[in-house]
């Protein structure tokens, strides 16, 4: 399936998706030391975000979130792309500093469509994603 969105930050990547349904907190919900989901009790707790395409409605977090993403990226623990309903300043700043694509405002709701484990291709310049092989 092909979806069209708005390019917040450009870049072409492909990889496995990890989908979180609630507003993602880059300070508390992400463990930069392991690159995994750090939400205790969440079904995806402990699953890797590092090296994957993170799919979220939007994000929030403290002002230092981008620093933690930057440090995580140095050891391969940051996501390689972010897809969201609506990009927020924290996601945009974090993605721009490590140079990964962010696409938002899709023509359909990505949270219902993309499933954890799906293979996703991002064509950053055009704001297009392809879900599945």
């Amino acid at each position, binding site marked *: 399936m092909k979806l069209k969105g708005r390019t*917040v*930050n450009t870049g072409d990547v492909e990889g496995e998706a990890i989908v979180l349904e609630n507003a993602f907190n880059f300070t508390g919900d992400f463990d930069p030391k392991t690159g995994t989901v750090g939400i205790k009790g969440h079904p995806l707790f402990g699953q890797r975000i590092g090296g994957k395409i993170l799919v979220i409605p939007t994000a*929030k977090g*403290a*002002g*230092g*979130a*981008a*620093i933690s993403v*930057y*440090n995580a990226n140095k050891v391969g623990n940051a996501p390689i792309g972010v897809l969201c309903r609506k*990009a927020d*300043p*924290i996601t*945009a*700043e*974090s993605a*721009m*500093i490590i140079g990964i694509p962010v696409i938002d405002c899709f023509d359909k709701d990505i949270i219902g469509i993309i499933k954890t484990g799906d293979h996703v291709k991002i064509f950053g310049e055009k704001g297009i994603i392809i879900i599945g092989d």
Partner: protein
Amino acid sequence: MILSKEEEEMAAGNLGPGIERCIKFLIKFGEAFGADKFVKVASAHVFNAFPIDLLKDLTEGVDQAGTFTTIHPFMSLFDPLACEKMGMAKERCLQQNDNYAKREEIYRRIGFFLTYTCVPQLVGNFPRKGDYVSWFGSSSQTFVNSIVGARQNQDGAVVNMAIAVTGRAPNWGLYLDENRYGKVLVDLDDLDSTSLTTTDLGAIGYYTGGIAQDRNAAISGLRRDIFYDKLKYLIHPVATSGAVSICHLVGITPEAPDLKTALGNKEPEEHVHVGMEEIRKTTEKFRTGESEPVDLVIFGCPHCSIQELKTIAGLLENKKTGSNQRLWVGTAHQVNDLAQAMGYSQVIEKAGGVIARSCMATIPDCPMPEDVKNVATNSFKTAAYITGISKGSIKVVVGEIEQCISAATSGKWEGED
């Protein structure tokens, strides 16, 4: 975005690679959020523990900061001048803080002032109403937006650094009039605001943030003569329980001469009353350790003013902290210089207190000394952070300065009754 001639030169690399990287980053960021142009900022206040390689990149070739810039505190126990007294070996502190000397070198070169405090306004960084600024730290952001009426977005550390280096910020969000009005009205009409303690004000702030979440708030019913040292305990927790960027105080703060103006002539989206019952319940949340021995007392979130250091020293005169009690006081070293000249710091230190240039809220982020199981503080923000970061394993009790000092000397928490 429409760029001025100078901004075009920056983007073309004519002012060096650091400025070029910063302005290009800000253009990309600004365009993602609909900014039409850049505005010049009156001041910046930046995160201290910036990764050294990123800092080098963003400041390469820069010999002068783009605006008046001050620096945020060390995190928790990482003040190299205080770590040992707080229970962390200097070696370990320097190891985890390894690039602090290299960062200082860069900060000195480009003229970022080594203030190491979360209260830039107490060390000379004081913008006017309507000025555009970029300050790091959720509480100081809310403070400068609300109490000063300068304009501030919730900039993250990197955007904030790029703004400090270039002196330019994308014109968007809370820089624009239409985004600055209150949406959630908290009224204190049922309260006698003459008798509110600092703890009560903290509870009102914490409660307000929880209701407003990320919306602008307006509080009505406060007296005009509640001054900075008390008001700050109301403003800071608003950004702890919620992500509130503006909290107008009707009849007090610059953009809220009256309720209609504060709300932009609109009805509030939500209107809540706060009375003693809400205050009591909110305070109760941060009294988990009230019946247990207090091991540590923390002041300085936000960093103590000179008047507060005077009060603390006055209460500690001829007293000593208990043999099992610690007392940590966060303040700017510039304020500490003044307190030394007045003799306050000597009294506090002689009584067993430690004065540090660190953030007093994020303490559990680094290993808390093992004997600390219960912390008393006059700050809701500290109480909430310690509870949150330690996941409740460290208990807290929030109250007045006098109650905290009494706990520091006796180890026991004295209730209000």
